């Protein structure tokens, strides 16, 4: 590995693979390493099921839950917003052709111990049992306003100053606390209530992302790839390879070599690969990161769908923090054999939240209670890291750990921000030109 590269990327998690792909496409010579024998790092999907048991230090079960090979278990569950940034990245880089997706069946929100389908348009709002009759009308007016809103056309502001706070906008429409809860958390997908002080424009944009995503393929605004999220980093790794990126897995990195305060290479103990830039996840540069919190996740195997979801084969449930007296939301994601992630008649549910107490597992209780009996449960508490600096001096650019959100918007924000810091410019999608030839027939 004693060659010279423009960039060495370490870790094959989703963020690193997207960056590796974008950098290769931009003409950089990229070496991409991983200490593991598989692609994906923390965003891998483990298969067969025994690998999950091994990962959590439990004795193997073989084919106890259907054929072990049919399982692809995400360590970090997330869904793609159909109109979100990751889908745009997939389309514009051509990576979408390596993957297949299906819609997620349902999107639900928790209120007073029960779950309700998230009403996303005026018609659904009027039919929902989530609100009383007068509240429905107010909410309908709010949705209508959001739909008609055009950032570039002040007429559509209808007298609202875009810098007005989200809270003030709610008050303008007279929405009650419950409606504010599911609007902010299940539609706008804020993780806590700090957004109330942010601009109403941000709230409106997020609500629009939800409804635009919903209108794309129906059912819910979410997509999920067949065979699990682990397919995503692999797709971007292929993109990188096709543009000349070199891949080495199972490659322990001994140390990052520095000179005059900036990186000059990576050593495996024997050889040094030279480079002027490093991109990596926090596990490759612990000493340059700070801990910013913890996430607790419980991966659960069920033998039944979740109650009151009309037997949905895949579903997201958001438990807004206010509803259970917390600061951060609790998320439940469930997928099943329709997405080729588990054996027939089983369901894979993951409950996750940001840790607030000394007893993280107990914090998941409202989510776990919704599952009504699990066959198996794997609980993990992971530290979240962020880089200490922006990498401009050291030229070591470190991604943030994956947060508790169940979609990829924050993931993409980090990736696009990193790309800009690394190259000094935005990614130019017109550089994507690989073969997608439909050769003429004989």
């Amino acid at each position: 590995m004693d060659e010279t590269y423009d960039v060495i990327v370490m870790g094959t998690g989703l963020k690193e693979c997207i960056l590796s792909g974008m950098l290769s496409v931009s003409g950089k010579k990229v070496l991409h390493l991983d200490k593991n024998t598989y692609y994906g790092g923390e965003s891998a999907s483990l298969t067969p099921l025994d690998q999950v048991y091994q990962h959590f230090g439990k004795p193997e079960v073989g084919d106890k839950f259907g054929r072990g090979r049919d399982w692809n278990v995400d360590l970090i569950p997330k869904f793609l917003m159909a109109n979100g940034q990751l889908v745009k990245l997939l389309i514009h880089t051509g990576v979408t052709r390596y993957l297949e997706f299906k819609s997620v069946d349902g999107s639900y929100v928790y209120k007073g111990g029960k779950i309700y389908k998230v009403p996303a348009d005026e018609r659904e709002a009027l039919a929902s049992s989530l609100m009383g009759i007068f509240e429905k009308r107010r909410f309908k007016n709010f949705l209508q306003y959001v739909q008609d809103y055009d950032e570039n056309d002040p007429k559509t502001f209808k007298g609202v100053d875009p810098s007005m706070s989200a809270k003030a906008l709610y008050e303008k429409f007279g929405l009650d606390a419950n409606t504010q809860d599911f609007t902010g958390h299940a539609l706008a997908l804020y993780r806590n209530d700090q957004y109330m002080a942010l601009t109403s424009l941000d709230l409106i944009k997020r609500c629009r992302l939800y409804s635009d995503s919903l209108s794309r393929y129906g059912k819910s605004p979410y997509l999920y790839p067949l065979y699990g999220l682990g397919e995503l980093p692999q797709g971007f790794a292929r993109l990188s390879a096709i543009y000349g990126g070199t891949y080495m897995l199972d490659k322990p990195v001994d140390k990052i070599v520095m000179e005059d305060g900036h990186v000059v290479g990576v050593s495996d103990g024997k050889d040094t690969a030279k480079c002027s830039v490093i991109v990596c996840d926090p596990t490759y540069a612990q000493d340059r990161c700070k801990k910013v919190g913890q996430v607790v996740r419980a991966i659960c195997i069920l033998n039944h769908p979740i109650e009151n979801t009309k037997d949905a084969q895949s579903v997201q449930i958001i438990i807004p923090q206010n509803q259970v007296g917390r600061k951060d939301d609790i998320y439940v994601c469930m997928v099943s054999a329709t997405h080729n992630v588990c054996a027939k008649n089983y369901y894979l549910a993951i409950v996750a939240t940001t840790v607030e107490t000394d007893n993280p597992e107990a914090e998941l209780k409202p989510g776990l209670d919704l599952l009504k009996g699990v066959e198996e449960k794997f609980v993990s508490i992971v530290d979240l890291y962020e880089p200490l600096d922006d990498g401009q001096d050291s030229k070591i650019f470190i991604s943030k750990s994956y947060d508790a959100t169940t979609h990829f918007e924050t993931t993409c924000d980090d990736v696009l921000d990193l790309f800009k810091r690394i190259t000094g410019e935005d990614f130019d999608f017109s550089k994507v030109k690989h073969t997608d030839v439909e050769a003429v027939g004989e």
Partner: protein
Amino acid sequence: MATGIPSFKVILHGEYGVGKSSIFRRFMNDTFTQATGKQSTIGLDQCTRTIDLGSQNVKLTLWDTGGMERMSFIGSSYYRGAHAALLCYSVNNKDTFSILSQYILDIVMNAEGAKIFLCGNMTDQLGPEGSEGNAVTDTDLDQFMSQCQDVLSGVYRVSCKDSSGLEEMFRDMARVLHQDTMSRMTMRRDMIRPGDTPEREQTTEKKRCC
């Protein structure tokens, strides 16, 4: 776009340097280059061709490895949804041949139900009878085939340099794959490929940005 033509994903597989990208290039635009190594593989992704079987048109989409087999594992996603794998070796390099059973295992594990075709490349380089050296002999091939009889759906010998055997191979693969689906029609309908899949009927005339 959505023609009713049956369409098959075929992945190239085999050791580096056996000529996978060369086969890909012959398939794509019937060209050949002496260039070798990582650099020569850049840009090759996948290519679709319609093959006329007389009674029926069939689409083959051939996938190159992107050179990912050079230093590391190719990753499970390459295999997903493959209807067939074209397993390549060089007829004058035994090593590239003896490793094939390992590749077959990978294919069976990762692309369940995929048909496997065997392709010996570089037949132009075979010396005269008796000068085999490191070449793969007929006996080697017979032995291998008897070991994995049921697994192989076709065995070919080609040369990308003088282009012999290639068109026949592509056509034969298309024929075998088509016959196979005729005997068990399976269609997947609810798959979504963002950017490709037509979206739900729009009720409002909103502009989309991508």
